């Protein structure tokens, strides 16, 4: 790796109220990304770049039914099968289960078993070269007997999870409310669309075990799945993370599936097998963000104070449970938005449908419900003739408020701060006044009386929209207590300082911020701290790299481990760690510190009653989006976004800004163009030519304001940044569209079709709701 001497200044980050930042911060200039040079020179090895001599190529035979009995797998007798490996459910040595929350998903559907979704894995093939593999795939025939399928979560009788939470007496409170407003909001599937597809290479070992190298976020999730599916022990299963080209949740639980498939093939073939999905297979078969229908009924006082909220959340889990209960849980807890309301009832459920399973995606249920909460609040503001900024000022949580789970917000509450910062930096009030005037001028002057469709004067309408969100940092409820994560730190006999953690680097900067935190706590230079490879043979289970928990939870453990290591060395040598650790190591050999998670003081949650501290702390985000809407075509261009995000404490300004910018653009895509269309339970746009994400020309200019309201439960105060921006972008864009046009879009994405339908006031021309599956007959050609 090149030795680089250039350093970057923490550019562009606006840090508010430094007086509130905990003392002892020795941040200085942010170091350069640790693995950056390898990525910039092409030297970094992603899964498909790894070479294993003699490796075969693997493929998956998938269902083309949404729901059916798998009656037979026929192999063409005229084909030469001698150089091909075929694996079916009968070849699985362990449990035919993809280990997750529930034991409902098979690794492969057995003959005679039930196919639950389109693209479900039925059998596996491997061959020495791709041409033979393709020919073998053509020589396989799948026989099925179709069963009736369910695509509508309201029609499903299978509920994966349901929660009810709340406070006060909503029914009585509605009777006392001045105004009651109802609304229904719908969001569809969203693909994570990491640019590197899912990929896994399995290498059988002599002890009957297997090592998998792959693209993944959570080494120990895969490790657990391999043990159960292959019937092997801790040592026989080994998982090594390759350089990972983006995850966003899409490589949280799904890699267990592809790792098991590769491992099964490798076990039978007795040689390494490469399972490298192409984009089409990745889009067709891997998890998406859960579609949701969210219904709000809200009672307010004339002055805009929220009196009562009644919220129903229904998520479509797809065919198997995956992580749906926790996605739903986070969605439900965040469903009211970051607002004080004394009387709340939130009912949430997730149902099974015969569509590919939905799973983790940045935000994990919160983007769905917070889009609904924010859009609904804006409609309330409109009904009361209050500005969106003012209604938020009157309701946003402040220190001492209580959430619907009974959590008292004791510290690190920055909703007001991010709101005011974003509004001020974007000149929200001035822009909104200008757009109101423009709308008034346009109204009634068009070809259609009273219609907001375009007039002869102007084709493009400008709008500005505001949204506010909160996002719980770390696992929900007692999740962190159950995880009991461990971080280790070694001072080797050679004097190297090495971090051992299963937290993965997938672009967000783990490999840079961890050495920063350890170096800071040890008082040594950044360059003096190494980070061990994410290989289950060496690193302890630090929990999954998800839920914006890496910087806060695992980073906090690392600092504690560093402090203990420092104390031990300094107690023995009497000098500073920095001055004495090399000599100490030479004299004493390896010194290792293991730091296990301990509950944050004063933080408790009851999983049974759903009461208590749902999260140790919340991050807070405000977003102001400026859009242009083409009144002829319905096309939306998001021009500018100002994002103010309170992330507790900034460890690395450049990386933190990068998280906000990237999350904001994913939210803009969610709001405007990203949608999966289904027919008969099958994804129709399962190619990158048809599932589109924003390009550099679609992307807004993004201004990031980093706000610091530190969490006092961890030494460094960080609360996590990954998911926060994903919650707030879409409702800001929808509000901006309403500011431009006067119409509210309640279904995401706000595609040109939906905008034109809303502008024309003719609901019948609107496309199907997001997440809905059109019947095969309506599509004409069918499959």
């Amino acid at each position, binding site marked *: *790796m*090149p*030795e*680089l001497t*250039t350093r*970057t200044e923490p*550019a562009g980050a606006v840090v508010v109220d430094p007086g509130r930042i905990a003392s002892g911060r020795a941040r200085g200039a942010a170091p*350069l*990304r640790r*693995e*950056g*040079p*390898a*990525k*910039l*020179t*092409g*030297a970094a*090895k*992603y899964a*498909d*770049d790894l*070479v294993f001599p003699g490796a075969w190529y693997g493929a998956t035979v998938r269902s083309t039914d949404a729901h059916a009995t798998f009656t037979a797998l026929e192999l063409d007798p005229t084909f030469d099968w001698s150089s091909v490996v075929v694996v079916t459910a009968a070849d699985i040595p362990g449990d035919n289960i993809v280990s997750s929350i529930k034991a409902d998903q098979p690794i492969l559907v057995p003959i005679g078993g039930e196919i639950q979704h389109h693209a479900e894995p039925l059998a596996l093939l491997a061959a020495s070269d791709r041409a033979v593999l393709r020919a073998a795939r053509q020589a396989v025939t799948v026989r099925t007997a179709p069963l009736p399928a369910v695509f509508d979560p309201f029609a499903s009788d299978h509920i994966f999870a349901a929660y009810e939470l709340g406070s006060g007496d909503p029914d009585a409170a509605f009777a006392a409310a001045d105004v009651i407003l109802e609304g229904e909001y719908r969001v569809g599937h969203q693909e994570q*669309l*990491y*640019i*590197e*597809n899912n990929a896994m290479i399995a290498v059988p070992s002599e002890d009957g075990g297997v090592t998998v190298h792959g693209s993944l976020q959570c080494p120990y999730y895969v490790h657990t799945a391999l043990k159960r599916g292959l019937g092997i022990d801790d040592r026989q299963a080994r998982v090594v993370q390759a*350089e*990972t*080209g*983006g*995850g*966003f949740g899409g490589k949280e639980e799904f890699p267990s599936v592809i790792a098991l498939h590769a491992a099964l093939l490798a076990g039978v073939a007795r040689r390494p097998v490469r399972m490298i999905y*192409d*984009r089409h297979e990745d889009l067709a078969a891997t998890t998406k963000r859960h579609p949701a229908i969210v219904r709000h009924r809200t009672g307010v006082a004339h002055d805009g104070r929220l009196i009562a909220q009644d919220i129903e959340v229904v998520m479509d889990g797809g065919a198997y449970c995956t992580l749906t209960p926790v996605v739903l849980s986070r969605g439900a807890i965040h469903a009211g938005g970051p607002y004080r309301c004394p009387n709340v009832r939130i009912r949430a459920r997730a149902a099974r449908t015969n569509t590919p399973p939905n799973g983790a995606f940045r935000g994990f249920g919160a983007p769905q419900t917070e889009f609904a909460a924010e859009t609904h609040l804006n409609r309330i503001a409109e009904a009361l003739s209050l500005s969106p900024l003012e209604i938020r000022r009157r309701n946003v949580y402040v220190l001492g408020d209580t959430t619907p789970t009974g959590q008292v917000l004791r510290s690190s509450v920055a909703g007001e701060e991010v709101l005011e910062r974003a509004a001020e930096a974007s000149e929200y009030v001035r822009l909104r006044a200008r757009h109101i005037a423009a709308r008034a001028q346009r109204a009634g002057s068009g070809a259609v009386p009273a219609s907001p469709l375009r007039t002869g004067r102007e084709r493009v309408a400008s709008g500005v929209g505001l949204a506010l969100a909160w996002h719980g940092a770390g696992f929900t409820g007692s999740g962190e207590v159950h995880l009991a994560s461990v971080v280790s730190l070694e001072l080797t006999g050679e004097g190297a300082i090495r971090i051992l953690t299963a937290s993965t680097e*997938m*672009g*967000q*900067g783990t490999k840079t911020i961890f050495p920063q935190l350890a170096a800071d706590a040890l008082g040594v230079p950044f360059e003096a701290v190494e980070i061990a490879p994410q290989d289950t043979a060496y690193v302890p289970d630090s929990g999954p790299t998800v839920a914006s928990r890496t910087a806060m939870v695992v980073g906090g453990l690392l600092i504690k481990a560093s402090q203990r290591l420092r104390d031990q060395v300094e107690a023995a040598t009497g000098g500073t760690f920095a001055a004495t650790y090399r000599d100490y190591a030479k004299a004493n050999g390896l010194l290792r510190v293991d730091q296990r998670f301990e509950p944050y003081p004063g933080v408790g949650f009851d999983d049974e009653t759903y009461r208590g501290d749902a999260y140790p702390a919340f991050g807070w985000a405000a977003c102001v989006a400026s859009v242009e809407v083409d009144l002829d075509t319905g096309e939306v261009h998001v021009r500018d976004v100002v994002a103010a995000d309170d992330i507790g404490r900034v460890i690395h300004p*450049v*990386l933190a*800004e*990068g998280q906000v*910018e*990237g*999350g*904001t*653009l*994913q939210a803009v895509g969610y709001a405007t163009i990203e949608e999966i269309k289904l027919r008969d339970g099958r994804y129709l746009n399962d*190619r*990158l*030519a048809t599932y589109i*994400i924003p*390009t*550099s*020309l679609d*992307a807004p*200019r*993004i201004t990031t304001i980093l706000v610091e309201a530190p969490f006092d439960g961890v030494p460094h105060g960080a609360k996590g940044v990954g998911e926060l921006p994903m919650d707030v972008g879409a409702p800001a864009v929808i509000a901006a569209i309403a500011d431009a046009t006067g119409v509210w879009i309640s279904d995401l994405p706000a595609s040109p079709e939906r905008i034109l339908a809303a502008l024309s006031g003719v609901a019948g021309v609107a496309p199907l709701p997001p997440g809905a599956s059109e019947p095969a007959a309506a599509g004409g050609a069918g499959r």
Partner: protein
Amino acid sequence: MTTFHFTVNAAPVEVDVPGMRRLLDVLREELALTGTKEGCGEGECGACTVLLDGAPVDSCLVPICQVEGATVATVEGLAPAANELDALQTAFLETGGAQCGICTPGMLMAGRAYLDAGGGPDDDAIREAIAGNLCRCTGYTKIVEAIARAADAHPGQAR
């Protein structure tokens, strides 16, 4: 099998492959140049962007028969020497233009073509130049900043 001759990163190479083999596969599998990535295999994402006679192309859409006698530049050839980075790579590193890194090789090649053609630090022009390269991590902000910084550092673009 046919023998094809071309240069990669200024070195002459010779490969025996079917004429319709993708340039992407030849680079990755015959020449072990795995810096060039496959993201979609159908010319949508730009992760496999290389320079063919100086012009950015999706190497997943170029059959090797079209490369006979041509000059190919990949990410492995950008750095002037081992343990060094060129101005564009340095700018990416300093501004945070690379996150997960999988779009980075293609993005660098698109940026390099833009700079080599005399492109300046103009935001709109840079966004146009990289519009064929998808990034899911950065929101493009820091990539545009990196290319602008490299253009600023080397006006007129001498390598």
